[in-house]
């Protein structure tokens, strides 16, 4: 009895810690504390699950935990900050896979129990089927998202004729098999369940394949909420409140975040998922194969002079800065400019980089003062008063086509109005198009100057050039 009460209290403590953790995560000053509270909640939850186990299966649990800890810790500590989004995708996929695996064990257990005359109950049966499907879709989808962002496969949308029809057929087949397994309560042949899970994995792959790299943050966020939902339904399966609450919390937050990101990109979720972007983007690239003309390339010294004698410079960081790890050099450049009493501001597009807040994290790493970072809505009116907009490895979020070319796939997406600045300097590796795979008319603007090269190398030479002035 006492043990029962203690365990229930421990579970409630874990839930409270999760909520408090998320609450403290909403403010930069308390975010770390929040993360630790949530981690403490998790530790309590795990101990509470292990306590009543009588040590059954201790070796299996230990083996799994040791392997999981080593792999999880190693990859979390080794990953470069640029690769964070895909790392989150992989961890998310692991969670989805775990949910599907738990359901599969439950299913196989029942099947064995059924053979000995114990009937299955509806709640467990229905919830394990749903959780297995969602978990498998999330796991496979996350792996594809990882492969795309890690550039182990093309980041471009993979499309073919009748793709949505094929996906629809697969989804229908899964639904049919699911109904069969649910209705017959485990009397059906085992392969029905196996094929169902296999098709769910296939669906996860096919659902992420047609989505272009630029939309990947939205997809990872969506998959995060999928896994949350799968875990919540696993909670129904096990009749365990803790799983339901924690899973639902993630499901709700992931959905919220997905909607916010979709709004920031002016891309309704429906468009993201059904590849409207991919199809028209592909056509655009093909139609303009001639490449962009009238590009004005400049030297480091030209740019250094422009920057050093400006009144106000707005730095627009993007994925290129993240890849080159140029944030420290950018900070140094800003310091040099401020010494010459140039006002430096940073313009942060909501989806710059590959995740919301990606740029903030990187710039924070380089000790860029918080109050120099401006959101899109706050900084856009500033461009007209700005002498130089320094675009470092950002592309699509500065593309004026989003404003005035109705046929452009990113038409309507809110962008940073860099073209309103008196001068625009774009630091870029090459003339390759951005992640969305479309050309940027900004580069043909007469007031735009291009400085080609690795972002870090370019910024470093800018720093020494400004110093030398």
């Amino acid at each position, binding site marked *: 009895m006492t043990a029962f009460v203690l365990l229930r209290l421990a579970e409630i403590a874990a839930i409270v810690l999760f909520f408090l953790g998320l*609450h403290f*995560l*909403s*403010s930069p000053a308390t*975010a*770390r504390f929040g*993360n*630790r509270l*949530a*981690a403490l909640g*998790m530790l309590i939850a*795990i101990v509470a*699950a*292990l306590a009543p186990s*009588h040590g*059954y*299966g201790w070796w*299996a649990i230990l083996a*799994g*935990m040791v*392997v*999981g*800890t080593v*792999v*999880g810790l190693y990859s*979390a500590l080794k990953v470069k900050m640029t690769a*964070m*989004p895909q790392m989150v995708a992989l*961890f*998310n996929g*692991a*969670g989805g*896979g*775990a949910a599907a*695996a*738990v359901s599969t*064990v439950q299913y196989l*257990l029942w099947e064995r*129990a059924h053979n000995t005359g114990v009937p299955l109950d509806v709640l467990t049966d229905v919830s394990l089927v749903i959780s297995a499907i969602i978990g498998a879709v999330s796991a496979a989808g996350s792996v594809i998202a990882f492969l795309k962002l890690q550039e182990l496969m093309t980041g471009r949308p993979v499309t073919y004729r009748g793709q949505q029809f094929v996906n629809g057929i697969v989804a229908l087949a899964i639904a049919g098999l699911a109904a069969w397994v649910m209705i017959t309560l485990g009397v059906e042949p085992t392969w029905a369940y196996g094929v169902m899970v296999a098709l769910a994995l296939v669906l996860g792959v096919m659902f992420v394949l047609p989505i272009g790299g630029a939309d990947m943050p939205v997809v990872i966020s969506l998959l*995060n909420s999928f896994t*949350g939902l799968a875990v*919540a339904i696993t*909670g129904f*399966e096990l*009749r365990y*409140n803790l799983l339901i609450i924690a*899973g*639902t*919390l*993630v499901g709700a*937050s*992931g959905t*919220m*975040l997905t909607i916010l990101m979709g709004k920031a990109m002016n891309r309704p979720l429906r468009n993201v998922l059904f590849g409207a972007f991919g199809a028209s983007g592909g056509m655009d690239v093909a139609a303009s194969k001639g490449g962009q003309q009238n590009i004005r390339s400049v030297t480091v010294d030209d740019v250094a002079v422009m920057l050093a004698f400006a009144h106000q410079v707005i730095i627009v960081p993007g994925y290129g800065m993240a890849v080159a790890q140029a944030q420290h050099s950018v900070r140094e450049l800003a310091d040099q400019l401020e010494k010459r009493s140039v006002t430096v501001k940073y313009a942060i597009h909501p989806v710059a980089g590959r*995740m919301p*807040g990606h740029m903030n994290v990187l710039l*924070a790493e380089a000790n*860029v*003062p*918080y109050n120099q970072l401006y959101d899109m809505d706050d900084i856009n009116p500033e461009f007209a008063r700005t002498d130089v907009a320094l675009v470092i490895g950002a592309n699509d979020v500065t593309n004026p086509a989003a404003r005035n070319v109705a046929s452009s796939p990113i038409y309507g997406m809110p962008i940073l109005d860099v073209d309103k600045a008196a001068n625009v300097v774009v630091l870029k590796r090459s003339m390759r198009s951005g992640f969305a795979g479309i050309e940027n008319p900004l580069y043909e603007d007469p007031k735009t100057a291009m400085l080609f090269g690795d972002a870090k190398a370019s910024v470093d030479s800018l720093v020494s050039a400004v110093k030398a002035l």
Partner: protein
Amino acid sequence: MSELSIFFGLLTVFVLAIFVGFEVISKVPTTLHTPLMSATNAIHGIVLVGAIIVTVKLLDPAHALATPLLTAITIVAVALGTINVVGGFAVTERMLQMFKKREPSKK
């Protein structure tokens, strides 16, 4: 009947959690979206607890239900859940460390 009342008890918790989840999240500034996503990602690692429960049930000697295949799947489930938890919280911590370093420079 009791099965049904259990279900509705769980469903109530589920529905309430949806509302509280939206409420907690909607106050977060954009800057913290990535760490937040990462932290919620770690929290759904609670599936590890589900994996532990199933493993214990499977390997309970009183039931003698275990087969090598089932045991292997549970070990995989525990490992995946642990990766989700440990990796998730560790990567979030790393992201947030960068926010912390900023404070002294602000003075």
